[in-house]
């Protein structure tokens, strides 16, 4: 029977990780990397936000893309959940609605990697009114 992992094993991993990585300072400078906020209120969770967040974290890690994926509250787009807010460094944030795993994959491949916007962006109309 395999041994079950515990905190002593985590300590070993900590030493290995610390010795081989230069700590990325994403936490201190999130504006320098791709930021994704997944709306994680009742509406988002009930519509599958958890799966989308897990998928984004796993896929971005797998592809080695420097990014910070965090959870956020309801952005008021309950009708379009799951929603994510994507910020590419130096650009205005955009919000995608009705995000599925397929859509999330497309967002990574096209918007994050090639900087091509996709269908499904929720228009930020208040900017137009201000202008």
């Amino acid at each position, binding site marked *: 029977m395999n041994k079950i992992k515990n*905190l002593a094993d*985590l300590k070993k991993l900590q030493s290995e990780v610390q010795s081989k990585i230069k700590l990325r300072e994403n936490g201190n400078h999130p504006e320098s990397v791709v930021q994704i906020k997944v709306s994680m*209120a*009742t509406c988002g969770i009930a519509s599958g936000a*958890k799966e989308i967040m897990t998928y984004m974290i796993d896929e971005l890690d797998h592809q080695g893309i420097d990014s910070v994926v965090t*959870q956020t509250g309801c952005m008021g787009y309950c009708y379009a959940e799951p929603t994510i807010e994507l910020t590419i460094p130096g650009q205005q944030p955009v919000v995608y609605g009705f995000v599925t795993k397929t859509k999330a994959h497309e967002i990574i491949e096209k918007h994050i990697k090639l900087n091509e916007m996709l269908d499904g962006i929720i228009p930020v109309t208040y900017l137009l009114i201000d202008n």
Partner: protein
Amino acid sequence: MKDLSMHILDIVQNSIRAKAKLIGIEITESPDENRLIVSITDDGTGMDSEQLKLATDPFYTSRTTRKVGLGLSLLKQNAEMTGGTFRIESESGKGTRVTAIFEFNHLDRPIIGDLVGTLLILICNSGKTDYVFKHQTAAGTFELDTRDIRQTIEDVPLNHPEVRQFLKEMLQENLEQIQISE
């Protein structure tokens, strides 16, 4: 909500919004007593008696982005639908405790679901919030305190991919050991 892990993720968001520094999540499965208890406690801002009265009203929310607040009402409805009970206690400035009791063998009791996914999202995005998790079944007890994890990994971030993968495996292995229902 499809399962209890989603309810837990949802209710914990309330604690996070209430600026809780320490959140307790406790699940107790007692098939012999035909009970499954989910309890979430926090040391956040809490609610006064007026807010507490309205907390499970689906048309009450403290948010301004929308006019409904369904999280607690859905959990209450789900618990009561199985012949169980729902209780919320809160004190302004001290914190809140939400307890939902389900009939374990009831046909409509939601499954526990992807608890590992829920815990991983909470732990790896915890910021300055700590979690104490306890899951008790007839097969044993699993306890996890993120303060111990932080102490162990020192300045390695909790959301580091290798730490995340380790925690995922640790949670899966430990929860499988005590699993008695889905």
